[in-house]
């Protein structure tokens, strides 16, 4: 490569950075900045009026992770808080996995439609975004509550005699979150599958791969970036979800999001 060519490459690399600069600035201010502040604050001592004092302290973390025994002042793990934390992680993981299991065939279906139909299907996928989250969640509530649509249908079909207790359980939260975050899995998966060269399927099939091996050895590795992007997009907001666990999990099945709201809004902690 000649020096001139080298120069051109570094030049275009620099242009690339310049182009992404506005996005980077916005991201730093809006996402990374607050995160740093929160982490710093968490190690400071609380002040009188809800402010913080500039003094290093691990009290806040101790308060979350441990409970101080009222009699002998020994520290014990704060089981209640850890349960909430664990439930959040578990439900978010389940949501992510299930969104993938449902989202992958859906994206595959869309990616293999003719271009015109593809646009229509993508539009249908994004329709839930046009409705307020609260309303959508109430709609699910309406379907799965004790006297809701699903129980009524099942009872009328004589498939069950007693209404199923679906609402205010972890399962309800999980179903609700999967529904809410599914499009966030489908869209990046579709973007990856759309670029996938379908002729590779025949090549693999021709080289003795079973349909399962075609999926595991060819499709999945190639669309991996889409799988990772979709999983992050579902997992992260699930972890901090607030509305869905509140409405479908009732008061008792709290997740981190609700806990934070409780502490911030009501406990002024």
């Amino acid at each position: 490569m000649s020096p001139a060519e080298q120069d051109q490459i570094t030049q275009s690399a620099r242009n690339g950075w310049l182009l992404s600069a506005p996005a980077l600035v916005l991201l730093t201010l809006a996402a990374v900045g607050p995160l740093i502040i929160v982490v710093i604050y968490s190690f400071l001592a609380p002040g009188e009026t809800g402010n913080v004092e500039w003094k290093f302290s691990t009290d806040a973390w101790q308060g979350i992770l441990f409970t101080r025994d009222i009699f002998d002042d020994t520290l014990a793990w704060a089981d209640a808080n850890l349960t909430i934390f664990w439930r959040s992680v578990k439900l978010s993981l389940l949501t992510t996995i299930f969104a993938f299991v449902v989202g992958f065939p859906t994206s595959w279906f869309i990616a293999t439609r003719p271009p015109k139909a593809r646009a229509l299907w993508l539009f249908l996928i994004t329709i839930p975004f046009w409705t307020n989250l609260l309303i959508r969640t109430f709609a699910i509530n309406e379907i799965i509550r004790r006297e809701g649509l699903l129980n009524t249908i099942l009872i009328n079909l004589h498939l069950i005699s007693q209404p199923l207790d679906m609402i205010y359980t972890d399962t309800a939260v999980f179903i609700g979150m999967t529904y809410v975050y599914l499009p966030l899995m489908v869209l990046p998966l579709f973007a990856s599958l759309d670029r996938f060269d379908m002729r590779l399927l025949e090549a693999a099939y021709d080289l003795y791969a079973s349909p399962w091996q075609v999926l595991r050895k060819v499709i999945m590795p190639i669309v991996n970036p889409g799988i990772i992007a979709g999983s992050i997009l579902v997992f992260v907001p699930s972890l901090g979800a607030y509305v869905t666990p509140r409405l479908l999990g009732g008061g008792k099945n709290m997740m981190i999001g609700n806990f934070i709201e409780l502490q911030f809004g009501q406990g002024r902690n």
Partner: protein
Amino acid sequence: MTQTIAVEASHVVKAFGHADTAVRALDDVSVQIRKGEFFTLLGPSGCGKTTLLRLIAGFEMPSGGTILLEGADITTLPPNKRPVNTVFQSYALFPHLTVAQNIGFGLEMLGRPKAEVQATTARMLALVKLETMASRKTSQLSGGQQQRVALARALAPSPKVLLLDEPLSALDLKLRKEMQIELKRLQTETGITFIFVTHDQEEALTMSDRIGVMSAGKLQQVGSPKEIYNNPVNRFVASFIGETNFLPASRDGDMYRLDCGIKIGAPPSKAARVTLTVRPEQVRLVADSEADALPAKITNLVYFGTDTHCHLSLPDGTEVVARLQSPATGDAGLALGQSVGVRFVPEAIQVLED
């Protein structure tokens, strides 16, 4: 008895679409492809070459007929159960794997031990002269190199038949000539039966042991390049393979009378109306005063370097092209509008019954 037929298709029909809008991509095709031969399917675009190949590979199921592989019926087997591999026109290399992993893919899917996969991959890399590229990603290769990887990948599992669908069409002319020789070498070295698809007649003539000429879903003729070129069975084959002159004629005793009124000799035939064919290189120009030469006028002269095409018009208007070797001086002493005599090399005249 040892099996000498690699692939046998009998009365294969393939229709796409439904009922009245259906397209018959293959219409009653029967062919036997011998073990170890380089067999070429040749025909114009849309004649069904790819479809026949895809039926043998198992990507499509025939609407009728059967396909045998070394005597065993494979008509309904899926592609991953057939010991047949394909070299795709687009190569279809796996972008997430290295060159070596691409080549080893088939053997790995067959569950062969690691040592065997590695040994065979190394052997294949040497066969296609890509030893130094083993750990590269396929996107870092040139077109010709990708082509070699595709070949090595398809050859690695030692298939009974290798299918190649216009594998050279994406390469430039020089590389194409190199790969033609390379392919022929690979076929001889491995002894594997090759079924090769092309619409380039020159490619077909130079590489094949036998050629199957297709048109409109039908196999028109199967034979060696010489048979196909010298004894085409019909007008389509005669005109598709090389250039040729068509001369309408009527039978007159043991001879044929051309439409311009002149009688010439040719192999016997039963039909009253026939078409005589002569290749341009078998047409001779003589002085117009010579007895029993056809009188003609030169209408056009096209210079091709090694030879010159001389377009001639017979008295009834029939066009004849003569291919003349360009003389050392570069000047054949011919001029437009000149009257000349035309003779055909007698053994080169073919009779097609219309």
